[in-house]
């Protein structure tokens, strides 16, 4: 156990230079963006004088190293600055929007896993068969379409033509009131409040965007599940288990699947962080008030604080995610922390 704790501890120390790196790179990146935020935010009819005023107010007249030191100091004190484009503290913006993105991404991944993993297992138990090829083709088709395109098509078909899906108006139709903020996840908050109607409303809104994202994430998960299952199924211990007469279910799930889970979890982690960054496009299509669309807007208008805050938040999330994956690993695989890595 000490070995495992040490492994986890090591991971945390590894994260420190990463976060430092992210802070520096995001700072440099934002300053490299073209355009002058002071000009942009001075508004329509601003003259040179007012632009200069704004530049001073934003601290952009100071030399870059000094700006960086100020930024670094603020970050250390937990102050991510104020987004000029939304006019809110970045921290608050992120707190509002991150749950939206997370809820969407997690739902999508849940959906994706519940399809991809059984599909991968099915394909692995019949390698080379028609089912296998079909699964490969289907899953690949899903990942071949740009998400924004899938999103628009789904809206067109299910909302516009068929009228089955609710209006793509973000997280909740306006006829519902937002559930009390507890976690920021509407499904959870509504459930906590015992408000079935709102819960259903939030769920309905989630279906299309989550499907869009899920379609996109199906392929890596199914592929990895298949490969890992194939690997596990061809290993010696499976032969031993079969020779001992264990039932096929036991062999497949308790023996093969649990072993195959390890690489699948790694992939899941990668897919998660990738999706969270990439749902930018889906959020735009579905008017989803998430962190992705926030970042895009901020980037386009050179809203330094917002971009930096977003990147930092994502990096922290990424680090946390890796930690969770490591912990999951240690739960599943007793070898972690003993093996030399």
């Amino acid at each position, binding site marked *: 156990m000490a070995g495992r704790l040490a492994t986890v501890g090591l991971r945390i120390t*590894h*994260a420190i*230079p*990463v*976060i430092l*790196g*992210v802070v520096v*790179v*995001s700072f440099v*990146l*934002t300053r*490299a*963006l*073209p355009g002058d935020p002071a000009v942009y935010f001075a508004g329509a009819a601003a003259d040179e004088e007012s632009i200069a005023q704004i530049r001073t107010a934003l601290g952009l007249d100071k030399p870059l190293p000094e700006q960086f030191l100020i930024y670094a100091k603020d970050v250390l004190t937990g102050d991510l600055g104020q987004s000029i484009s939304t006019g809110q503290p970045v921290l608050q913006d992120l707190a509002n929007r991150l749950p939206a993105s997370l809820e969407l991404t997690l739902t999508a991944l849940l959906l994706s896993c519940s399809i991809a993993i059984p599909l991968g297992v099915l394909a692995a138990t019949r390698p080379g068969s028609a089912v296998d*090829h079909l699964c*490969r*083709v289907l899953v*690949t*088709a899903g*990942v*071949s*379409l*740009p*998400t*924004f*395109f899938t999103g*628009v*098509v789904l*809206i*067109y078909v299910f909302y*516009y033509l068929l009228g089955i899906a609710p209006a793509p108006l973000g997280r909740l139709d306006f006829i519902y009131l937002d559930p009390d903020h507890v976690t920021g996840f509407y499904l959870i908050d509504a459930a906590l409040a015992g408000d079935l109607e709102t819960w259903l409303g939030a769920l309905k809104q989630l279906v299309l965007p989550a499907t869009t994202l899920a379609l996109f994430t199906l*392929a890596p998960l199914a592929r990895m599940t298949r490969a890992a299952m194939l690997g596990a199924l061809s290993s010696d211990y499976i032969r031993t288990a079969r020779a001992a007469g264990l039932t096929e279910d036991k062999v497949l799930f308790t023996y093969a699947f649990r072993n195959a889970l390890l690489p699948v979890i790694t992939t899941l982690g990668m897919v998660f*962080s*990738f999706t*969270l*960054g*990439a749902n*930018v*496009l889906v959020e*735009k*299509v579905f008017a989803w008030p998430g962190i*992705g669309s926030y*970042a*895009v807007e901020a*980037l*386009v208008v050179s809203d330094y604080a917002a*971009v930096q805050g*977003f*990147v930092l938040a*994502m*990096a922290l999330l*990424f*680090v946390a995610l890796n930690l969770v994956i490591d912990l999951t690993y240690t739960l599943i695989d007793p070898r972690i922390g003993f093996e030399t890595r």
Partner: protein
Amino acid sequence: MTNSGSTPLPAEQQDGAFAHMAYVLRSNPVTLLAFCMFAVLMIAAVLGPSLVPYDPLASNAALALDPPSLAHWFGTDSLGRDVFSRVIVATRLDLAISIAAVALSFLIGSVLGSIAGYWGGWLDSILNRLFDTIMAFPLFVLAMGIVAALGNTVENIVYATAVINIPFYARLVRAEVNIRRDAGFAQAAKLAGNADIRVLALHIFPNALPPMMVQVSLNLGWAILNAAGLSFIGLGVRPPTAEWGIMVAEGANFIVSGEWWLALFPGFALMFAVFTFNLLGDGLRDIVDPRQRS
């Protein structure tokens, strides 16, 4: 179980590279399909501009937004340009972007990953932190940032796509090199008088190729989608250049108003290409891997 067998000598016929490829293609219908599709793409990329019926850039306001017809198979866009011609001509650019980006990240990722995996130690630690740092960025947003900062030219799209892909290659190569670092054949190569660099470059690295091929093919598709995503945000290649991503992104706005052909056909082309690349992976690996020969 060894495959030593007691087969008597002059043994069975050797597979040539060609016969091997033929075998890989024959044994897996999906791979065969993928290769055929790839051939189609290649033909479109090479011959496309000389095949198309119309100038892909010539507008014709009178013909704007015409649905598909015999004259315009895929219809026309809002400027009256022939969608079919644009879709075909775009093949070259899209393939060029993705191949260039993937080649770049493959190259850089391989070098860095090999170094990290072979020498290990502090070099490995530093490089690993570097890759972690890149990975810790939301990749698409990083690509957007790079393109926004450097300007939206084709080269910059390529660079941005390459940068965000580097860690994936580097990690893969690192792992593959690492497990072979002390392999018997690496030691044998050293005994044969190869210095570390040669051992790494000529003996260890080529053996990491088969798994990399899968990554390459997935990435080729992904690079196209990435470029398309950038176009959707408005950071794609410059108009009026025909590019699938831009066409889909613009066309997506026309779907609801009934001009489905604007997004659908380039969308299919995009899907076709990504699909091809994705399917190609396993076949490519089998072809590169000499162990598949017997």
